[in-house]
């Protein structure tokens, strides 16, 4: 707590600073319109001083685990499918992650993240602000409905900008059509039925990862994200390896 008290002749101000675990600080200073003071508190007797929040953050880092993704499909303006996850971290001068909550971690920071091209973060934004306030860093999702390479950058006041990272959105095919269900008398729209679809590599037991199934109440559906890359990942994921099993 900081309190001030004017002297009787209004020539001085008495500053009093109190903080748990520290000796109270009291000092008179001349009464001026504004001044900048640096005050050092002395730890209280018999108490361990609580270390002030370490602010070892010197810069930012962007991490993209999978920098290649099929283009996303926008079924509705506000909802995309697929996307690329980007992790925003605070780092110290040696490049070590110092997100808030890690040992010796920094205070939370607000970071501005930008992307080039036609790619967008959630809510159709090409620039977004995120708060890095937990030990895992902050994860944001990037979408693009155009096959292109885009660059993601990040900055925050007082911190070195993150090294930009590239993300490649690649062309993907899709499957579409109409799903109808038997309601006891006829084939109709699947109004109250949950329907799901899984895509497999032809002739195998391998599901294709990262595809998206969208269906409206009329039964019109689209399966998007069908790229060779996804088939490759599917086969690698179960350790069978190689490409000989592709159709």
């Amino acid at each position: 707590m900081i309190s001030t008290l004017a002297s009787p002749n209004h020539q001085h101000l008495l500053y009093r600073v109190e903080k748990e675990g520290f000796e109270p600080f009291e000092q008179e200073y001349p009464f001026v319109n504004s001044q900048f003071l640096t005050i050092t508190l002395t730890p209280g007797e018999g108490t361990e001083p609580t270390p002030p929040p370490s602010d070892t953050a010197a810069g930012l880092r962007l991490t993209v685990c999978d920098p290649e993704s099929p283009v996303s499909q926008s079924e509705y303006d506000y909802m995309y499918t697929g996307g690329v996850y980007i992790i925003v971290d605070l780092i110290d001068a040696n490049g070590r992650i110092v997100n808030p909550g890690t040992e010796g971690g920094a205070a939370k920071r607000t970071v501005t993240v930008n992307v080039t091209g036609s790619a967008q973060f959630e809510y159709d934004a090409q620039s977004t602000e995120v708060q890095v306030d937990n030990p895992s860093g902050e994860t944001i999702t990037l979408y693009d409905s155009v096959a292109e390479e885009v660059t993601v950058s990040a900055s925050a006041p007082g911190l070195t900008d993150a090294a930009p990272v590239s993300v490649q959105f690649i062309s993907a095919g899709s499957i579409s059509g109409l799903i109808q269900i038997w309601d006891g008398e006829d084939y109709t729209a699947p109004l109250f039925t949950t329907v799901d679809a899984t895509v497999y590599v032809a002739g195998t037991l391998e599901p294709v990862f990262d595809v998206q199934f969208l269906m409206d109440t009329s039964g019109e559906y689209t399966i998007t994200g069908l790229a060779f890359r996804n088939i490759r990942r599917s086969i690698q994921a179960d350790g069978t390896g190689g490409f000989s099993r592709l159709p």
Partner: protein
Amino acid sequence: MEPADFPDFPDIPDFPDIPDIPDFPDIPDFTDLFGNSTTSDGDTVYLQTVCVPGISVTAPRDTANVNVDLGPRENGAHVYGSLVREDGEPVDFVFATVVLYSQDAQTGCEQMEWIKSIISFGDDLSEVEDLYSMSYELNQIPAGTYLVRCTALSEETQFTNGAGELITLAPGEDKEVNLIMKAAIPVTLESPVDYPRISPPFSFVWSVPEDTPSMVYDVFLIDRCGEMVWSQTDLTGTEAAYTGPALSNQTIYSWYVLSQTEDEENTGGVMNFGYSEAPEFLVE
């Protein structure tokens, strides 16, 4: 001043009879939504799983008009049963899932799973014996061989039916399969947790309750992107010294433990954790 006479209201014509509104079909139970439809009489129709083979897709084009009619499943088996606790205690599960995994599949299209989720509701959760009574039923299951797996959650821990039960179903068969549920042995990840910055050499340490039978553990270390960095399997102790490649001080690592009793009858379950006990760490 005399008020003006109001004109007579014209006769209101008889309103035409409102035709009877047909009964709205019952909305199916939440847990029955998947793959079922409901007739106008409220009867449940069990829908087929349809396989559409040989679809050719070329990016960036759309392969259109792949239309699918999900017809009724017929002449399938009826599988039902109860969930009971191995220790004879009253069943106190709040949620359970029974899954029949097809064992005959040669291709993904034939790889069918039939799922039944069971939720216990109750106004007074202290009166557990009746409220938590759990049974399940799966209808029109195509003939074949299936592995029946079940997981359940009580308010305190999780249960499984171990390695599962293998059953063979004939067309139209009625089959009772009661599931014996065993409590998972709680495994607590002790160290390193909560994002410490550690210096190699170090060990992974976890614990189980004192009266736990002999267990076999597998420990895994993964990097920030989920890639496996190191693993050690078939451990019998609750500590594993890290012996993998040099770790980077520029990232965050996670670790986890899979376990089961030596007789393979019971599995271990890692206790829930939040940020404060997350099995994640950094390197000095």
